[in-house]
């Protein structure tokens, strides 16, 4: 099932990766977990979150100990935000573009992210552009982990895109070069998993790795 695969991938690429690299079990209390909200997965009655949903997973695993203050999710679709707000009212759900929202919150001195999970529904050709732009901006916050998720195979894509193709998409962007000059690093490994309709790939980046 998609949700189970997805939650396994999240465990490996976000929770385990953060713990392994930082040596901390959870993010510090003055820092935030920023993600793209999407529609969280529900139980059958649509009234409660599924344990496989991102919010339930990162809070129950103890990665985000204070979800009311630390969990920040962006989405441009107001309907999804409204539904998520209804089932998880304690977290912060913002109907905004993630880049514009982060810049605004930074200007208002309200955000200090420790993990940014860019769980995009895009192919690497477009997704890397947004991801590089975000990485350049996020170099203000250290130490920080950036997790980028892309679709590498779906309907109308003739063959799955390789791991090399993802890094080639990154490498041809000047913004990615700037991000690396600002200290971002990666082990160039890719976590691939299959959902119901698409194959996804996740890359983890670190700034000031400890």
């Amino acid at each position, binding site marked *: *099932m998609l949700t*189970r*695969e997805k939650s*396994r*991938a999240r465990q*490996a690429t976000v929770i385990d990766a953060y713990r392994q690299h930082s040596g901390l079990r959870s993010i510090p209390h003055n820092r935030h977990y920023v993600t793209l909200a999407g529609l969280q997965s529900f139980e059958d009655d649509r009234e409660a979150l599924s344990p496989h949903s991102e919010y339930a997973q990162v809070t129950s695993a103890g990665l985000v100990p204070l979800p009311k203050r630390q969990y920040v999710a962006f989405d*441009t*679709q*107001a*309907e999804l935000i409204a539904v998520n707000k209804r089932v998880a009212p304690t977290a912060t759900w913002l*109907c905004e573009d993630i*880049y*514009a929202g982060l*810049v*605004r919150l930074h*200007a208002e001195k309200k955000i200090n992210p420790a993990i940014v999970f860019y769980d995009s529904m895009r192919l690497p050709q477009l997704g890397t552009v947004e991801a590089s*732009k975000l990485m*350049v*901006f996020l170099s203000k916050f250290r130490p920080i982990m950036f997790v980028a998720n892309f679709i590498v195979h779906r309907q109308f894509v003739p063959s799955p895109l390789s*791991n*090399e193709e*993802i*890094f*080639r998409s*990154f*490498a*041809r*962007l*000047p*913004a*990615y*070069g*700037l991000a*690396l*000059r600002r200290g971002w690093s*990666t*082990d*160039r*490994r*890719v*976590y*691939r*998993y*299959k959902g119901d309709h698409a*194959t996804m790939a996740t890359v983890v980046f670190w700034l000031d790795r400890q």
Partner: protein
Amino acid sequence: MKNNNDKNAGWSEPVDASIAEPQNEASCKDRTGRFVRVTEEMRHNYLERMAELAAFRKQHGPQPVARFISAEKKSKSGIVVTPDVAMEYLRSVRYNRLFIKKNLQDYSMIILNGQWIPNHTDSTKFDTEGYLGDANHRMHCVILTGVPIIVRVDLGLSHAEIETLNSRKAARSAQALSGYQFEAPLANETIHGVKTLLATLGQPLDIEGVDTPYKRIINTYKELIDLIVPALPKKSNEMPNYSKGEVIAVLLMIGIVNRKTLVEWLPKFNLHLRYKTCELSESLSRMLGWLDKYVEGRAVEMDRSPTDYVIRCKAFLKAILSGVKPKNGANGLDDQNFMDTLVYKLLHEAQIDVQLSDVDRAPTTWRNDPNYVRERKK
């Protein structure tokens, strides 16, 4: 449940480092090696400042310059504009002028290479209330490059004086509909065309009666309804109200809304993205139907090819625009261009409908449609 994906999930081996090597900017010189160019660093700082500006304007709207330039500072040599000052000036922009990206590139090169000279004609203009009326590109360039420049300043200009800057610029129909009053005669032709278009559809839209002469930002569905529905004819006595999809279909048909704007608006109108295509295509069909009834007094069959849509739409729009005789190449409302734009926009959206209905011949794009090409040659 058996899961076949387990064997595929997991971490890969590291990708070869040579593949992941980024393209570094070799130097900040351009290809000729003589001029300094805009670097990636500048571009990203600019993006962040623009996001801040957009957030401020969304929250507070245009604000007049607080630290308004006093008469002492207005000297012959001009004043220094730093990036922070430029941000402050840009917060005060309320004139809806076209933003040209090429100007941004050109001016940035000039500023970066130290060739900026404030001259006597291109001054930075403020109106009587302290809002910036001109020199938007200059302010953007200062923020992009981070280099302060010296500009000359004109204070206390009237709206009419500032508006003369737009005398040779094409006006957008969105500007006209948002209640933007133009002093320039050429721009007024465009407004006249749009007004006639709406007036022929139903009651005339009272553009002069709009509260503010500046850009009116539509934030809610109700505001949009208040603006557009009075201009439309009555559907029928049984169904006097317009659905959301129908209102948006009208906007698409008369070319006010494009697809990008539409996607931005959908959350405001509580329309779910998933239902967008279905509802819009249905609405477009219905709109075409009753617009056709309105013009010719008979119903339209919806299982037609895109070419028929073009012909019918053109006929309809020509009937609407028969009262208007703009000069060719005047501005914006050039007869042929205007029609083509409208029809293109309409078809661009109507193709969704064509895919859904049972059409025997549905070309991939309407430009490839041989019948349409033949008609253009005539």
